[in-house]
């Protein structure tokens, strides 16, 4: 167990380990995505009120769920890098930030597209949408901060501090936006009870959520591998791998 964790910190070992991880996780993720999309978009029954337009839930909800989880993954990697000073955690954090930002963007855009037929507008200042937008800003802040630092080792530490501060704040932000919305709630817009989702619609949704987690993991590991060979482009193991020596 411990030797495995120690090995994770070694760039050449992680590069090889990540390569074999991607080799089986990528096909598995693609299969899950295809099956989930087919099941959700074609097989699952249409919604009683929303007809077929609700089907965007199979992209929207998984993206939103994984986007939020991704922030915690990023912050956890940041904490590991600050406490144990493991370089690999820096790289994981840097790799996770843009992926999370894109997922948050997908959740926002699909939410807007879903809002048009359901509520009649592209955008409403609903509690969940607003929280998602703020999460998007938090991600962009981390990415922008990383880009602004010239010393990349310091950049990773600065982003780790920022993402930890964000982690402490996320529950407070969510709760405050929730209260803000319930105070100002306009009467014309109401969510139809989403908690009472039928099993025939729920199972493909759960499958899609698992697939999106897989997609997140694969993308982050691939990002990390790319970062690793760039970072160690002068060292022997990379030149050997690329067939230069």
């Amino acid at each position, binding site marked *: 167990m411990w030797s495995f964790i120690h090995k994770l910190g070694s760039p050449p070992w992680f590069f090889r380990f990540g390569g074999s991880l991607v080799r089986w996780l990528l096909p598995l993720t693609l299969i899950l995505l295809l099956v989930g999309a087919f099941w959700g978009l074609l097989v699952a029954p249409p919604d009683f009120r929303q007809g077929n337009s609700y089907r965007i839930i199979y992209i929207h909800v998984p993206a939103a769920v994984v986007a939020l989880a991704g922030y915690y993954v990023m912050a956890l990697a940041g904490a590991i890098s600050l406490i144990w000073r493991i370089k690999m955690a820096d790289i994981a954090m840097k790799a996770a930030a843009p992926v999370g930002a894109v997922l948050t963007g997908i959740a926002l855009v699909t939410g807007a597209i879903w809002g048009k037929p359901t509520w009649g507008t592209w955008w409403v200042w609903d509690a969940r949408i607003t929280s998602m937008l703020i999460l998007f800003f938090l991600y962009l802040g981390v990415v922008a901060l990383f880009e602004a630092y010239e010393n990349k080792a310091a950049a990773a530490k600065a982003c780790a501090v920022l993402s930890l*501060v964000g982690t402490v704040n996320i529950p407070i932000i969510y709760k405050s936006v929730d209260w803000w919305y319930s105070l100002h709630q306009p009467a014309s817009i109401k969510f139809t009870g989403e908690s009472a989702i039928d099993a025939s619609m729920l199972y493909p949704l759960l499958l899609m959520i698992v697939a999106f987690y897989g997609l997140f993991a694969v993308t982050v590991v691939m990002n990390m591998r790319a970062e690793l060979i760039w970072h160690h482009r002068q060292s022997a193991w990379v030149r050997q791998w690329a067939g230069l020596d």
Partner: protein
Amino acid sequence: MSASDQPSLSLGASFFRQFLRHGKALAASPADLLNPLLFFFMVVTLFPLGLGPDPERLSQMAPGILWVVALLASLMVSGKLFASDFEDGSLEQLCLAQHPLAILALAEVLAHWLGTGFLLALVSPVFALMVGLPIQALPVLVISLLLGSLCLTLIGAVGSALTVSIRRGGLLLSLIIIPLHVPVLIFGSTAVVEATRDGNAVSWLALLAALVLASLALAPLAIGAALRISLDNG
């Protein structure tokens, strides 16, 4: 333990000294004290010009206007918090001090707040009357801005510490800090809105106070860590 290991100043004395040093620097340049107030004044003027002079609509929007402008004013000044210390090297001296950097930085943040947010909260009733905030809401406005600006300053100080080593870090500071300011804005402006309706403003003020206490406890740690990182980068 030999005598040389003993800190020459106690923690409290160093804290007080640091507080005075920053406070004196602020007091020596009246422009630094007046500019945020002037900024507040001018941006509040922009709202009637943009929204139209209808007093009823303005007074309805007054809590939000005042709070958003106060937040912007706090963002404007927090970029400068550690800038001079970083440039003249006194930040490196602070890092070498025998006391925790977090505590010494907190002293600077508090002095900075007294010179900016605290003053702004005290003069805010004047601007509030200009946009027609009902008189009965004025005490809540002042209290909410007193608590809220301390919270904004503490969070802003984290951003300032993270961006102090970056040239042209001003806009970046806003980008990373605005999302963290959201709860403060919501609690503060809602407290004022509730006060205009004779509603329950106290519970929102209590939430703000809770935020102040939490950020007083946690922000200095992040500020200290961020300052050390900035010194590595610079």
